[in-house]
């Protein structure tokens, strides 16, 4: 179960999601539709949850 989702920027580019799950573990999720965690994030967003987005300045 997802607790938080944050966009992860590498060298100024949004490369993947950084998420924490309810067991406390952190995961990096590639932006790939075949990835089941990515699918879960899309479902989580569709349920009205908010992705943390702090793009580098």
């Amino acid at each position: 179960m997802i607790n938080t989702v944050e966009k992860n920027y590498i060298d100024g580019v949004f490369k993947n999601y950084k998420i924490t799950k309810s067991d406390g573990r952190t995961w990096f999720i590639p932006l790939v539709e075949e990835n089941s965690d990515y699918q879960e994030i899309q479902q989580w967003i569709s349920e009205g949850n908010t992705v943390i987005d702090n793009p580098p300045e």
Partner: protein
Amino acid sequence: MALSRIDTTNMIEDVPQSKLDNNINFRNIIINGDMSIAQRGTSTSGVTSSDGYYACDRWYSQTDIGTWTISQSTDVPTGQGFVNSFKMDCTSAGTSNADEVMIRSKHEGQNLQYLKYGTSSAESLTLSFWIKSNKTGNYYVAMANANSTQDRVVSFGYTIDSANTWEKKTITIPGDTSQGFDNNNVENLTIYWLFSAASGFTSGGVSNTWINYSTSRFANSNLAGLGGSTSDEVYMTGVQLEAGTSASDFEFLPFDVNLQRCLRYFQDLAPKENDDRFTLGENVNTTRCDPILYFKPEMRAAPSFSSTAANTFSLYHSGTSRDCTSVALDSINNTGGNLIFNVSSGLTAGGCSQVITNGTGTQCFFDAEL
């Protein structure tokens, strides 16, 4: 020396027949059906509603009632050749059948095309498994086809007749002539072993044949229900799903073959000893090293990445080892990718660092599960 003559008098004319029945390789659709592979660790305690993969590879647990320890057990049916089973042990009770407790097995559609689902030649399937629980009564198995056009489901019942006794169950499922499996690498067929379920899964009763998907048709309301007592536990092993109307002997695979099949879905690339060399990377600047990793075999899809704490890794550069301060994923696909390891200072840009482990039990998980 010239070959003069071959004496055929005592030559064997016929190769002796194998004594193994149904000796068709890879007939078992289930991967790790003997529960022998457990890359994530052999036991996780305190599992509540964190549905996911624990202990045995490829086996997904849903525990929405109570608290559970999920483990790879050595309790197995006697004389069957199994070494391990998958165990769910309730350690803090809830209310049985108030919510779901189940095990799932998920499968790619591209591995199921030979079943000819969606045609008049659709193959029957036979599911066999060994199971043991403290609680006797009615239990249910459902299979769902997540077809992109029309989801389908079929469900069946079985009974656990004797408490704390290994029993083999066999269920034959007619083929679905109406709907095929999509030919792709995502979740198509999912098998659910239900041990507890709320009315949303039972109100319609079992279907016994393929129907358009309805969650209410997964089980009957007389499901025995686990999770209501700390005595509740269930073990399972020897799971086989095969084409045909009868169950053949379990198809044991060599350990390396079984592991190789699991690596398509999950890999832990970190060595388990202290101070082990892990990989090499270029120092991008004085604090960052980007090592490249390759997956063998290639994974099902670009995987998710997770590791133990940053300081369980060090960068060894120019004779000095420096603890990492952060670890992140840069880019990745199903054949490999690169990570980012940061230290506080001391690297030479353009140089090279070895990534090494600090302590035992370091994890570098790549997960492409369904």
